[in-house]
């Protein structure tokens, strides 16, 4: 009878740890986790071993993120602040770019729009702005991670923290200037949460692109 194939740890958990560590450091940490996982599988079974691996991976990612920040707190914060200022300065860019592109494409010889043309124009105006708004935090996250080489995720998480603080201040200012039942806090919070998720996604994309080359070299 052929021996059973070795049980592999959860891939998503391994990927999560790999996001916060690189090179030899990542190999040592992943090796340690795998060694304990293999022992746990033979001692307690696959289920408990997988649960242990997940817990360890989440805790390890959090510890490494904190370590990445503490290694260079001021430069991390400076890059995160610069990223936030870039994001704030470019906030109206999606609208302006969309309108400019539509103007360039829709400069009709006649001054009138048909109903269909008007519908198309409004469709692209609306969706173009939304696509731009989704792309902007993603690109800012990529840019911040590109500057913070080796601490991509720690820096994009710091950027999210700065964004969160700025949102808090904005809410305070809005509530000071308006009635307490001001109805736009929830949409504002949701939009800023989505922005933060997209910024981190940008950091993850940059980190993954950077790790492709060392992985290829390691495979020979």
């Amino acid at each position, binding site marked *: 009878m052929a021996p059973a194939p070795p049980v592999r740890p959860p891939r998503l958990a391994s990927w999560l740890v790999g996001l916060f560590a690189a090179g030899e450091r990542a190999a040592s*940490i992943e090796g*340690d986790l795998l060694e*304990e996982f293999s022992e746990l599988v033979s001692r307690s079974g696959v289920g408990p071993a997988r649960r242990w691996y997940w817990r360890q991976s989440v805790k*390890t990612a*959090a*510890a*490494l993120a904190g*370590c990445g920040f503490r290694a260079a707190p001021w430069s991390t914060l400076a890059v995160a602040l610069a990223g936030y200022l870039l994001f704030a300065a470019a906030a109206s860019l999606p609208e302006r770019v969309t309108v400019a592109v539509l103007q360039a494409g829709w400069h009709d010889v006649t001054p009138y729009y048909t109903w269909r043309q008007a519908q198309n124009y409004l469709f692209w105006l609306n969706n173009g702005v939304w696509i731009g708004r989704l792309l902007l935090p993603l690109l800012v996250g990529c840019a911040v991670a590109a500057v913070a080489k080796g601490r991509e995720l720690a820096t994009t998480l710091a950027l999210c923290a700065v964004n969160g603080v700025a949102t808090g201040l904005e809410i305070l200012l809005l509530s000071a200037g308006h009635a307490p039942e001001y109805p736009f806090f929830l949409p504002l919070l949701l939009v800023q949460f989505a922005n933060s998720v997209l910024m981190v996604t940008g950091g993850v994309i940059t980190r993954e692109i950077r790790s492709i080359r060392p992985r290829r070299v390691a495979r020979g």
Partner: protein
Amino acid sequence: MPRRGHLGEFEHLVILALLRLGHRAYGVTVRREIARRVGREVSIGAIYATLERLESKGYVKSALGEATPERGGRSKRFFRITAKGMSALEETHRALARMTRGLALIRSFS
């Protein structure tokens, strides 16, 4: 914040684990030693974050060991205390001894 030359609480535990383990000290064994003796379950990430901090201070040195199949072909990273690390440990112990001298600790906490 620990003063320069003094170890933080977790740094202290990790250095003592290195001292106990000798040449067998790497992430897994350090984690287990602390869990076994102190009853504190810590993550591999916390161990590495502390060991790397100690390494940047010059208290610890690391070297890559052998790769084994149960580690998916990845190498172990062994750690050992340097002379500077030993001095920091002794200084921390001296400070603790000065602070605890004359106190009946066991009685006052029971």
